[in-house]
């Protein structure tokens, strides 16, 4: 995950230039995202208990009542804070992994469509239509029904989410880059297509793609937590944010905190990413709808 983070960040010079005019809520959002990433990276060091450890003396303890379990415990006496930290790690891992897969997949297909045109382009566009025509949740549920469940499959499946947006963007921008001249000029210098696409076109359209990633990322979090909430995503004993909410739902009358803690994290995280994303979009790329 460490190698994922720099990719997801905006290009450094652009960000430095824009930092001073950041509104307070965007700064807050960035702070929250930073905290979440830190929590995910350091989860093994900062969890007070193992997330599966049961403490039967403390069952259904409310939050802020004892220092040993600051966010309370669940029915089995498991520490909510520890479970929350591990859940953040799992959910973020899935969301980052899926966002990267979908960006790479979509951009590659978009470039292929732009480069070969003709049949390849038609095929990519048709697949994109297909993807856009079906609600992704239904698609994901069908795949899970047929294939059963595992963490890699789940990440891969989530990685199919949103690829068609990158594909459309990458195709459109690559076509206009070729028409514009610098791509033609570099081809004319004798460069291989891979060089033209990776060294020249990709850096030129990176800001647009990064903005799209900030739009897809919160949706992936919502999707994963929705699936896990339904009991069809991350499977116990593993836990994720949606999973915790699903489990906490059974105790909503007696111990609402079990479900409220992960719900708050989900809402704040998607909120933070979309605020930062909207702001980035306005700053970097006003053309994106």
């Amino acid at each position, binding site marked *: 995950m460490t190698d994922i983070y720099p990719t997801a960040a905006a290009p450094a010079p652009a960000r430095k230039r824009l930092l001073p005019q950041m509104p307070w809520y965007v700064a807050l959002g960035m702070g929250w995202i930073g905290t979440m990433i830190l929590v995910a990276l350091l989860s093994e060091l900062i969890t007070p208990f193992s997330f599966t450890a049961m403490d039967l003396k403390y069952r259904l303890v409310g939050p802020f009542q004892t220092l040993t379990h600051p966010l309370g415990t669940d029915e089995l006496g498991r520490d909510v804070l520890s479970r929350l930290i591990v859940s953040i790690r799992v959910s973020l891992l899935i969301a980052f992994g899926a966002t990267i897969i979908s960006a790479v997949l979509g951009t590659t297909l978009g470039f292929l469509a732009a480069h070969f045109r003709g049949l390849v382009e038609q095929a990519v566009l048709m697949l994109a239509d297909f993807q856009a025509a079906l609600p992704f949740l239904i698609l994901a549920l069908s795949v899970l029904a047929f294939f059963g469940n595992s963490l890699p499959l789940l990440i891969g499946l989530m990685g199919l989410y949103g690829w068609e947006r990158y594909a459309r963007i990458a195709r459109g921008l690559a076509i206009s880059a070729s028409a514009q001249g610098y791509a033609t000029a570099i081809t004319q210098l*004798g*460069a291989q297509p891979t060089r033209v696409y990776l060294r020249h076109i990709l850096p030129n359209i990176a800001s647009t793609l990064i903005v799209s990633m900030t739009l897809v990322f919160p949706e992936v979090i919502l999707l994963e937590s929705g699936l896990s909430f339904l009991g069809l995503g991350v499977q116990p004993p593993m836990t994720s944010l949606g999973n915790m909410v699903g489990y906490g739902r059974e105790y909503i009358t007696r111990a609402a905190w079990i479900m409220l803690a992960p719900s708050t994290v989900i809402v704040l995280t998607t909120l933070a990413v979309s605020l930062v994303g909207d702001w980035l979009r306005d700053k970097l790329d006003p053309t994106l709808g």
Partner: protein
Amino acid sequence: MSALLTLDTVAREYVTRKGLLGHRRVVRAVDGVSLQVMPGETLGIVGESGSGKSTMGRMALGLERPDEGSVSFDGAPMPLLGSAAWRGLRKRMQMVFQDPLAALDRRWTVLDQIIEPLTIHGIPGDARAAGLEALAAVGLSRDHGARYPHELSGGQRQRVIIARALITNPDLLVCDEPVSALDVSIQAQVVNLLIDLQKTRGLAMMFISHDLRVVRQISSRVAVMYLGRIVEEGPAAQVFHDPQHPYSRALVSAAPTPGPRRIEQVILTGEPPNPAARPSGCAFHPRCPVATARCRTEVPALVPAGPGRRAACHLIEPAAKVAA
């Protein structure tokens, strides 16, 4: 001496669709052009927009495949666009574009872009030093090299393009309207730079422009194009001094020249050339002040018309042809 570049009766057609029912229409942008460029010479190509001169330039470089005819470079046929052989040939033939800003990647420094061809073709040696040398050769400083394209002026950008085109020491440079996007005051500087570089390096050049003044200054030989065909070709000094084709006469007479005017001003009337609606016979006949009935039906061939000269007009006296 054998030609460096040979175009043998090349033609290029574009298919356009118009209207809801997708009516197919074929536009012949270049229609059977034969040309040669000798090593070290500058061939000027003159014509209005729509004359097919840019398409011809792209075919000369192998950027487009002719639908008919063939292109050969240094005695060998032009390899297929995008093939390894085609890519390898790029270090020997380069292009200068009309809009230098569009031809540069705005995210790379100028020096990095100038030395990119060396990386692409895996040419050994100190690329940076070669890049600085190339910058100096086009009259830019080391400091310019560290900048980004948008931090340079139009003339400086075109110098960057020229430096990038020449860094692999090519044999042929195709310039497509290289100065028409620049201020008039800058145009002369860039043209002079090209003339200098051409002389010192023994480059062959194909210089495409609608601007007669510039073409006259730089070319040793010129070809005049009208609607995809060459109507006149010959040594620059002679064609400009004594144009034979009525279209060349009109062009030359319209261009401002120093000294006393030798030919009478001919004013072109009628529609500007439209490749989608090509007139029958000699394509120039609707605008030609001296057209006859024969011009409407019969396409004139490009035939010798004096020493080293060719022209395509029915009205050029067979006697003159014989005298040649």
